[in-house]
Protein backbone atom coordinates (compact mmCIF):
# COMPACT_ATOMS: atom_id res chain seq x y z
CA UNK A 1 0.00 0.00 0.00
CA UNK A 2 2.52 2.59 -1.14
CA UNK A 3 -0.28 4.96 -1.99
CA UNK A 4 -1.55 4.81 1.58
CA UNK A 5 1.90 5.47 3.03
CA UNK A 6 2.44 8.38 0.63
CA UNK A 7 -0.92 9.92 1.46
CA UNK A 8 -0.39 9.50 5.22
CA UNK A 9 3.05 11.11 5.00
CA UNK A 10 1.66 14.12 3.11
CA UNK A 11 -1.15 14.54 5.60
CA UNK A 12 1.22 14.49 8.58
CA UNK A 13 3.86 16.68 6.91
CA UNK A 14 1.31 19.32 5.98
CA UNK A 15 -0.16 19.12 9.50
CA UNK A 16 -3.57 18.43 7.98
CA UNK A 17 -3.83 15.76 10.66
CA UNK A 18 -1.85 15.07 13.83
CA UNK A 19 -2.26 11.31 13.93
CA UNK A 20 -2.89 8.52 11.45
CA UNK A 21 -4.82 5.56 12.85
CA UNK A 22 -3.90 2.49 10.86
CA UNK A 23 -2.75 -1.11 10.90
CA UNK A 24 0.82 -2.09 11.69
CA UNK A 25 2.79 -5.20 12.44
CA UNK A 26 1.75 -7.01 15.61
CA UNK A 27 3.20 -9.99 17.42
CA UNK A 28 3.85 -13.15 15.38
CA UNK A 29 1.90 -12.95 12.12
CA UNK A 30 -0.81 -10.71 13.53
CA UNK A 31 -1.52 -7.06 12.89
CA UNK A 32 -2.41 -4.39 15.42
CA UNK A 33 -3.65 -0.81 15.49
CA UNK A 34 -0.91 1.78 15.32
CA UNK A 35 -1.07 5.52 15.85
CA UNK A 36 1.41 7.31 13.64
CA UNK A 37 2.29 10.86 14.64
CA UNK A 38 5.62 11.32 12.79
CA UNK A 39 5.80 11.43 8.96
CA UNK A 40 8.92 9.26 9.11
CA UNK A 41 6.95 6.46 10.79
CA UNK A 42 4.38 6.22 8.02
CA UNK A 43 6.13 3.27 6.37
CA UNK A 44 5.01 1.18 9.34
CA UNK A 45 1.48 1.29 7.93
CA UNK A 46 0.35 -1.92 6.31
CA UNK A 47 -2.87 -3.21 4.87
CA UNK A 48 -3.72 -6.79 3.95
CA UNK A 49 -6.32 -9.46 4.62
CA UNK A 50 -5.17 -9.88 8.23
CA UNK A 51 -6.28 -6.35 9.09
CA UNK A 52 -9.75 -7.10 10.47
CA UNK A 53 -9.81 -4.99 13.62
CA UNK A 54 -12.39 -2.22 13.47
CA UNK A 55 -10.31 0.94 13.90
CA UNK A 56 -13.39 3.18 14.16
CA UNK A 57 -13.50 2.19 17.81
CA UNK A 58 -10.64 4.62 18.52
CA UNK A 59 -12.38 7.68 17.07
CA UNK A 60 -14.55 8.17 20.14
CA UNK A 61 -11.89 7.37 22.76
CA UNK A 62 -10.74 10.35 24.84
CA UNK A 63 -7.08 9.18 24.78
CA UNK A 64 -7.03 9.24 20.99
CA UNK A 65 -9.00 12.48 20.68
CA UNK A 66 -6.25 14.08 22.77
CA UNK A 67 -3.71 13.36 20.00
CA UNK A 68 -5.43 15.81 17.66
CA UNK A 69 -7.21 15.49 14.35
CA UNK A 70 -6.97 11.93 13.03
CA UNK A 71 -6.80 10.32 9.63
CA UNK A 72 -8.10 6.78 9.72
CA UNK A 73 -7.45 3.78 7.50
CA UNK A 74 -10.91 2.52 6.71
CA UNK A 75 -11.79 -0.68 4.89
CA UNK A 76 -15.52 -1.30 4.32
CA UNK A 77 -16.49 -2.40 7.87
CA UNK A 78 -14.75 0.67 9.33
CA UNK A 79 -16.49 2.94 6.80
CA UNK A 80 -19.85 1.54 7.90
CA UNK A 81 -19.03 2.21 11.54
CA UNK A 82 -17.87 5.74 10.72
CA UNK A 83 -21.14 6.40 8.91
CA UNK A 84 -23.17 5.09 11.83
CA UNK A 85 -21.14 7.19 14.28
CA UNK A 86 -21.70 10.21 12.02
CA UNK A 87 -25.44 9.51 11.89
CA UNK A 88 -25.43 9.46 15.70
CA UNK A 89 -23.64 12.84 15.77
CA UNK A 90 -20.50 11.38 17.32
CA UNK A 91 -18.16 12.64 14.59
CA UNK A 92 -17.69 16.02 12.94
CA UNK A 93 -17.31 16.09 9.20
CA UNK A 94 -14.18 18.29 9.38
CA UNK A 95 -12.93 16.46 12.47
CA UNK A 96 -11.28 13.58 10.65
CA UNK A 97 -9.91 12.45 7.32
CA UNK A 98 -11.05 9.08 6.08
CA UNK A 99 -8.59 7.04 4.04
CA UNK A 100 -11.04 4.54 2.63
CA UNK A 101 -9.94 1.22 1.22
CA UNK A 102 -12.15 -0.33 -1.42
CA UNK A 103 -12.78 -4.09 -1.64
CA UNK A 104 -10.19 -4.06 -4.45
CA UNK A 105 -7.67 -2.65 -1.93
CA UNK A 106 -7.54 0.75 -3.59
CA UNK A 107 -7.26 3.99 -1.68
CA UNK A 108 -10.48 6.03 -1.80
CA UNK A 109 -10.83 9.53 -0.42
CA UNK A 110 -14.06 11.06 0.78
CA UNK A 111 -15.20 14.68 0.67
CA UNK A 112 -18.00 14.21 3.14
CA UNK A 113 -19.97 11.66 5.16
CA UNK A 114 -22.57 11.75 2.39
CA UNK A 115 -19.87 10.55 -0.03
CA UNK A 116 -19.22 7.59 2.28
CA UNK A 117 -22.91 6.77 2.20
CA UNK A 118 -22.94 6.89 -1.60
CA UNK A 119 -19.89 4.65 -1.71
CA UNK A 120 -21.43 2.16 0.70
CA UNK A 121 -24.66 2.01 -1.29
CA UNK A 122 -22.87 -0.39 -3.61
CA UNK A 123 -21.38 -2.31 -0.67
CA UNK A 124 -24.45 -3.17 1.38
CA UNK A 125 -24.24 -5.29 4.52
CA UNK A 126 -24.97 -8.87 3.67
CA UNK A 127 -25.29 -11.60 6.22
CA UNK A 128 -23.32 -14.57 4.98
CA UNK A 129 -25.22 -17.74 4.19
CA UNK A 130 -23.31 -19.80 6.75
CA UNK A 131 -24.56 -17.47 9.50
CA UNK A 132 -28.09 -17.44 8.13
CA UNK A 133 -28.03 -21.21 8.22
CA UNK A 134 -26.65 -21.29 11.76
CA UNK A 135 -29.34 -18.87 12.98
CA UNK A 136 -32.02 -20.95 11.27
CA UNK A 137 -30.59 -24.07 12.83
CA UNK A 138 -30.71 -22.54 16.32
CA UNK A 139 -34.24 -21.25 15.78
CA UNK A 140 -35.37 -24.72 14.69
CA UNK A 141 -34.40 -26.25 18.04
CA UNK A 142 -37.11 -26.74 20.70
CA UNK A 143 -37.13 -23.82 23.11
CA UNK A 144 -35.46 -25.65 26.02
CA UNK A 145 -32.72 -27.03 23.81
CA UNK A 146 -32.11 -23.57 22.40
CA UNK A 147 -31.79 -22.18 25.91
CA UNK A 148 -29.37 -24.94 26.87
CA UNK A 149 -27.29 -24.20 23.77
CA UNK A 150 -26.90 -20.56 24.79
CA UNK A 151 -26.37 -21.35 28.47
CA UNK A 152 -23.51 -23.62 27.47
CA UNK A 153 -21.99 -20.86 25.36
CA UNK A 154 -22.59 -18.05 27.83
CA UNK A 155 -21.23 -20.07 30.75
CA UNK A 156 -17.82 -19.50 29.16
CA UNK A 157 -18.10 -15.72 29.37
CA UNK A 158 -16.00 -14.22 32.16
CA UNK A 159 -17.09 -10.66 31.56
CA UNK A 160 -13.85 -9.26 30.24
CA UNK A 161 -16.00 -6.86 28.19
CA UNK A 162 -13.67 -7.24 25.20
CA UNK A 163 -16.80 -7.33 23.04
CA UNK A 164 -17.73 -3.92 24.38
CA UNK A 165 -14.21 -2.52 24.05
CA UNK A 166 -13.90 -3.71 20.46
CA UNK A 167 -17.26 -2.35 19.31
CA UNK A 168 -17.12 1.11 17.72
CA UNK A 169 -20.76 1.69 18.67
CA UNK A 170 -20.32 0.92 22.39
CA UNK A 171 -19.00 4.41 23.04
CA UNK A 172 -20.89 5.36 26.22
CA UNK A 173 -18.42 6.71 28.75
CA UNK A 174 -20.52 5.21 31.55
CA UNK A 175 -21.94 1.79 30.75
CA UNK A 176 -24.93 0.23 32.50
CA UNK A 177 -22.77 -2.68 33.68
CA UNK A 178 -20.68 -0.30 35.76
CA UNK A 179 -23.73 1.08 37.51
CA UNK A 180 -23.92 -0.39 40.99
CA UNK A 181 -26.66 1.74 42.56
CA UNK A 182 -28.52 -0.52 41.96
CA UNK A 183 -26.35 -3.30 40.57
CA UNK A 184 -28.23 -3.59 37.31
CA UNK A 185 -26.17 -6.49 36.00
CA UNK A 186 -24.34 -8.74 38.48
CA UNK A 187 -20.58 -8.18 38.33
CA UNK A 188 -19.66 -11.82 38.93
CA UNK A 189 -19.42 -13.98 35.84
CA UNK A 190 -22.17 -16.47 36.57
CA UNK A 191 -24.49 -17.46 33.77
CA UNK A 192 -27.47 -15.31 34.79
CA UNK A 193 -25.42 -12.13 34.74
CA UNK A 194 -23.67 -13.22 31.55
CA UNK A 195 -27.01 -13.79 29.86
CA UNK A 196 -28.31 -10.42 31.04
CA UNK A 197 -25.17 -8.68 29.85
CA UNK A 198 -25.36 -10.18 26.37
CA UNK A 199 -29.09 -9.44 26.07
CA UNK A 200 -28.40 -5.86 27.04
CA UNK A 201 -25.48 -5.54 24.68
CA UNK A 202 -27.48 -6.90 21.78
CA UNK A 203 -30.49 -4.72 22.56
CA UNK A 204 -28.37 -1.58 22.78
CA UNK A 205 -27.02 -2.43 19.34
CA UNK A 206 -30.41 -3.24 17.85
CA UNK A 207 -30.74 -1.43 14.56
CA UNK A 208 -27.32 0.20 15.04
CA UNK A 209 -24.96 -2.74 14.59
CA UNK A 210 -23.11 -2.60 11.29
CA UNK A 211 -22.16 -6.27 11.34
CA UNK A 212 -18.38 -5.84 11.53
CA UNK A 213 -17.95 -8.88 13.82
CA UNK A 214 -15.41 -7.03 15.97
CA UNK A 215 -17.18 -8.36 19.10
CA UNK A 216 -16.80 -11.97 18.00
CA UNK A 217 -13.21 -11.47 16.89
CA UNK A 218 -12.38 -9.93 20.27
CA UNK A 219 -14.03 -12.63 22.37
CA UNK A 220 -11.30 -14.77 23.97
CA UNK A 221 -13.76 -17.63 24.45
CA UNK A 222 -15.13 -17.59 20.91
CA UNK A 223 -18.74 -17.20 22.05
CA UNK A 224 -20.86 -16.61 18.92
CA UNK A 225 -22.30 -13.33 20.17
CA UNK A 226 -22.30 -11.98 16.63
CA UNK A 227 -25.20 -14.34 15.91
CA UNK A 228 -27.34 -12.26 18.27
CA UNK A 229 -26.68 -9.01 16.44
CA UNK A 230 -26.91 -10.68 13.04
CA UNK A 231 -30.28 -12.15 13.92
CA UNK A 232 -31.43 -8.71 15.07
CA UNK A 233 -30.39 -7.25 11.72
CA UNK A 234 -32.64 -9.82 10.09
CA UNK A 235 -35.44 -8.84 12.47
CA UNK A 236 -34.98 -5.17 11.59
CA UNK A 237 -35.23 -5.97 7.91
CA UNK A 238 -38.24 -8.21 8.39
CA UNK A 239 -40.19 -5.74 10.52
CA UNK A 240 -39.01 -2.29 9.55
CA UNK A 241 -37.66 -2.62 6.04
CA UNK A 242 -34.07 -1.52 5.79
CA UNK A 243 -30.94 -1.87 7.82
CA UNK A 244 -27.46 -0.47 7.55
CA UNK A 245 -26.09 2.93 8.52
CA UNK A 246 -27.52 6.04 6.90
CA UNK A 247 -27.35 9.77 7.56
CA UNK A 248 -30.97 10.16 6.50
CA UNK A 249 -32.74 7.86 8.88
CA UNK A 250 -33.06 7.52 12.60
CA UNK A 251 -32.02 4.41 14.48
CA UNK A 252 -34.64 1.67 14.61
CA UNK A 253 -35.28 1.95 18.33
CA UNK A 254 -35.12 5.73 18.57
CA UNK A 255 -37.86 6.17 16.01
CA UNK A 256 -41.22 4.60 15.26
CA UNK A 257 -43.90 4.32 12.66
CA UNK A 258 -47.53 4.45 13.82
CA UNK A 259 -48.20 1.62 11.35
CA UNK A 260 -45.58 -0.80 12.73
CA UNK A 261 -46.98 -4.31 12.47
CA UNK A 262 -46.76 -7.11 15.01
CA UNK A 263 -48.82 -10.19 15.71
CA UNK A 264 -48.33 -10.82 19.41
CA UNK A 265 -49.97 -7.88 21.19
CA UNK A 266 -53.52 -8.55 22.33
Amino acid at each position, binding site marked *: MNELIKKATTLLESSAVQVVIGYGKGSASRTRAIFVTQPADCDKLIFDSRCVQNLAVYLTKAEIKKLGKPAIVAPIPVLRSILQLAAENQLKEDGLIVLGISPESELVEFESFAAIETFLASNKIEIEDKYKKKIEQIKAMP*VSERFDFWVKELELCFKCYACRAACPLCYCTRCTVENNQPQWIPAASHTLGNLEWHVMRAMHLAGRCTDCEACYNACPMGIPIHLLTKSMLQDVEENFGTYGPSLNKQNTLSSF*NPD*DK*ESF*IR
Partner: protein
Amino acid sequence: MIMNEFEPKIVAFVCNWCTYAGADLTGTSRIKYAQNVKIIRFPCTGRIDFMLLLKAFGEGADGIIVSGCHPNDCHYTSGNFHARRRWIMFRGLLDLLGIDVRRIQYSWVSAAEGAKWADIVNTTVTAIRELGPYTDYAKVAGYLEKEAKV
Protein backbone atom coordinates in the same frame (compact mmCIF):
# COMPACT_ATOMS: atom_id res chain seq x y z
CA MET B 1 -56.52 -26.57 52.30
CA ILE B 2 -54.06 -28.64 50.32
CA MET B 3 -52.03 -26.50 47.92
CA ASN B 4 -50.13 -28.80 45.67
CA GLU B 5 -51.40 -27.54 42.36
CA PHE B 6 -48.94 -25.26 40.60
CA GLU B 7 -49.88 -21.60 41.07
CA PRO B 8 -48.13 -19.44 38.46
CA LYS B 9 -46.42 -16.28 39.63
CA ILE B 10 -47.19 -13.52 37.13
CA VAL B 11 -45.66 -10.05 37.11
CA ALA B 12 -47.51 -7.34 35.23
CA PHE B 13 -45.71 -4.22 34.05
CA VAL B 14 -48.40 -1.69 33.25
CA CYS B 15 -48.61 1.97 32.36
CA ASN B 16 -50.12 4.42 34.78
CA TRP B 17 -52.54 6.08 32.40
CA CYS B 18 -54.37 3.22 30.71
CA THR B 19 -53.83 -0.30 31.98
CA TYR B 20 -53.38 0.62 35.63
CA ALA B 21 -56.60 2.63 35.48
CA GLY B 22 -58.18 -0.24 33.55
CA ALA B 23 -57.15 -2.72 36.25
CA ASP B 24 -58.58 -0.32 38.81
CA LEU B 25 -61.85 -0.35 36.89
CA THR B 26 -61.85 -4.15 36.96
CA GLY B 27 -61.81 -3.91 40.73
CA THR B 28 -64.41 -1.16 41.08
CA SER B 29 -66.65 -3.08 38.64
CA ARG B 30 -66.38 -6.07 41.02
CA ILE B 31 -65.08 -8.33 38.25
CA LYS B 32 -63.25 -11.26 39.76
CA TYR B 33 -59.99 -12.44 38.25
CA ALA B 34 -57.04 -14.67 39.07
CA GLN B 35 -55.00 -13.50 42.03
CA ASN B 36 -51.65 -14.68 40.65
CA VAL B 37 -50.70 -11.32 39.23
CA LYS B 38 -48.51 -8.71 40.87
CA ILE B 39 -48.96 -5.35 39.21
CA ILE B 40 -46.08 -2.91 38.88
CA ARG B 41 -47.03 0.59 37.77
CA PHE B 42 -44.91 2.62 35.37
CA PRO B 43 -45.36 6.13 34.00
CA CYS B 44 -45.53 4.74 30.46
CA THR B 45 -44.85 1.55 28.51
CA GLY B 46 -41.98 3.46 26.91
CA ARG B 47 -40.42 3.54 30.37
CA ILE B 48 -40.44 -0.24 30.79
CA ASP B 49 -36.84 -1.31 30.33
CA PHE B 50 -36.44 -4.71 28.66
CA MET B 51 -34.06 -5.71 31.45
CA LEU B 52 -36.91 -5.54 33.97
CA LEU B 53 -38.57 -8.44 32.19
CA LEU B 54 -35.43 -10.53 32.56
CA LYS B 55 -35.16 -9.47 36.20
CA ALA B 56 -38.70 -10.72 36.77
CA PHE B 57 -37.79 -14.13 35.33
CA GLY B 58 -34.57 -14.06 37.36
CA GLU B 59 -36.57 -13.47 40.54
CA GLY B 60 -38.78 -16.46 39.82
CA ALA B 61 -41.71 -15.20 37.76
CA ASP B 62 -43.35 -17.87 35.62
CA GLY B 63 -45.05 -15.39 33.35
CA ILE B 64 -45.08 -11.70 32.54
CA ILE B 65 -47.76 -9.32 31.32
CA VAL B 66 -46.73 -6.05 29.72
CA SER B 67 -49.59 -3.71 29.03
CA GLY B 68 -50.25 -0.08 28.18
CA CYS B 69 -52.33 2.35 26.18
CA HIS B 70 -53.63 1.47 22.75
CA PRO B 71 -51.66 2.96 19.83
CA ASN B 72 -52.53 6.68 19.44
CA ASP B 73 -53.75 6.84 23.07
CA CYS B 74 -50.41 7.40 24.79
CA HIS B 75 -50.44 10.09 27.47
CA TYR B 76 -47.00 11.12 26.23
CA THR B 77 -48.04 10.87 22.56
CA SER B 78 -45.54 8.27 21.41
CA GLY B 79 -44.26 6.20 24.35
CA ASN B 80 -46.20 3.12 23.35
CA PHE B 81 -45.05 3.38 19.72
CA HIS B 82 -41.43 3.30 20.90
CA ALA B 83 -42.29 0.47 23.28
CA ARG B 84 -43.89 -1.54 20.49
CA ARG B 85 -40.71 -1.38 18.39
CA ARG B 86 -38.64 -2.36 21.39
CA TRP B 87 -40.92 -5.34 22.08
CA ILE B 88 -40.72 -6.51 18.49
CA MET B 89 -36.91 -6.49 18.63
CA PHE B 90 -36.74 -7.88 22.17
CA ARG B 91 -39.11 -10.72 21.39
CA GLY B 92 -36.99 -11.78 18.43
CA LEU B 93 -33.83 -11.74 20.56
CA LEU B 94 -35.42 -13.72 23.41
CA ASP B 95 -36.75 -16.25 20.95
CA LEU B 96 -33.27 -16.80 19.51
CA LEU B 97 -31.85 -17.18 23.02
CA GLY B 98 -34.41 -19.86 23.88
CA ILE B 99 -36.20 -17.76 26.48
CA ASP B 100 -39.83 -18.82 26.26
CA VAL B 101 -41.68 -15.93 24.59
CA ARG B 102 -45.00 -17.67 25.25
CA ARG B 103 -44.54 -16.62 28.86
CA ILE B 104 -44.67 -12.92 28.02
CA GLN B 105 -48.09 -11.53 27.15
CA TYR B 106 -48.16 -8.07 25.63
CA SER B 107 -51.45 -6.23 25.46
CA TRP B 108 -53.16 -2.89 25.05
CA VAL B 109 -55.72 -2.27 27.78
CA SER B 110 -57.36 1.15 28.03
CA ALA B 111 -58.77 2.76 31.17
CA ALA B 112 -62.26 1.71 30.03
CA GLU B 113 -61.41 -1.95 29.46
CA GLY B 114 -61.78 -3.43 32.92
CA ALA B 115 -63.26 -6.62 31.52
CA LYS B 116 -60.44 -7.00 29.01
CA TRP B 117 -57.88 -6.77 31.81
CA ALA B 118 -59.60 -9.55 33.74
CA ASP B 119 -59.65 -11.64 30.58
CA ILE B 120 -55.95 -11.00 29.84
CA VAL B 121 -54.95 -12.02 33.36
CA ASN B 122 -57.18 -15.10 33.37
CA THR B 123 -56.06 -16.39 29.98
CA THR B 124 -52.40 -15.72 30.82
CA VAL B 125 -52.70 -17.59 34.11
CA THR B 126 -54.35 -20.52 32.32
CA ALA B 127 -51.67 -20.54 29.63
CA ILE B 128 -48.82 -20.41 32.15
CA ARG B 129 -50.44 -23.09 34.26
CA GLU B 130 -50.37 -25.34 31.22
CA LEU B 131 -46.72 -24.47 30.50
CA GLY B 132 -45.80 -25.21 34.13
CA PRO B 133 -43.14 -23.54 36.28
CA TYR B 134 -40.32 -21.82 34.37
CA THR B 135 -37.66 -24.36 35.30
CA ASP B 136 -35.35 -23.51 32.39
CA TYR B 137 -34.68 -20.02 33.61
CA ALA B 138 -34.64 -21.13 37.26
CA LYS B 139 -31.59 -23.30 36.44
CA VAL B 140 -29.68 -20.16 35.57
CA ALA B 141 -31.24 -17.90 38.19
CA GLY B 142 -30.41 -20.53 40.82
CA TYR B 143 -26.76 -19.53 40.58
CA LEU B 144 -27.42 -16.58 42.90
CA GLU B 145 -28.82 -18.78 45.66
CA LYS B 146 -26.13 -21.41 45.26
CA GLU B 147 -23.45 -18.76 45.64
CA ALA B 148 -25.12 -17.26 48.68
CA LYS B 149 -25.05 -20.70 50.37
CA VAL B 150 -21.32 -21.16 49.67
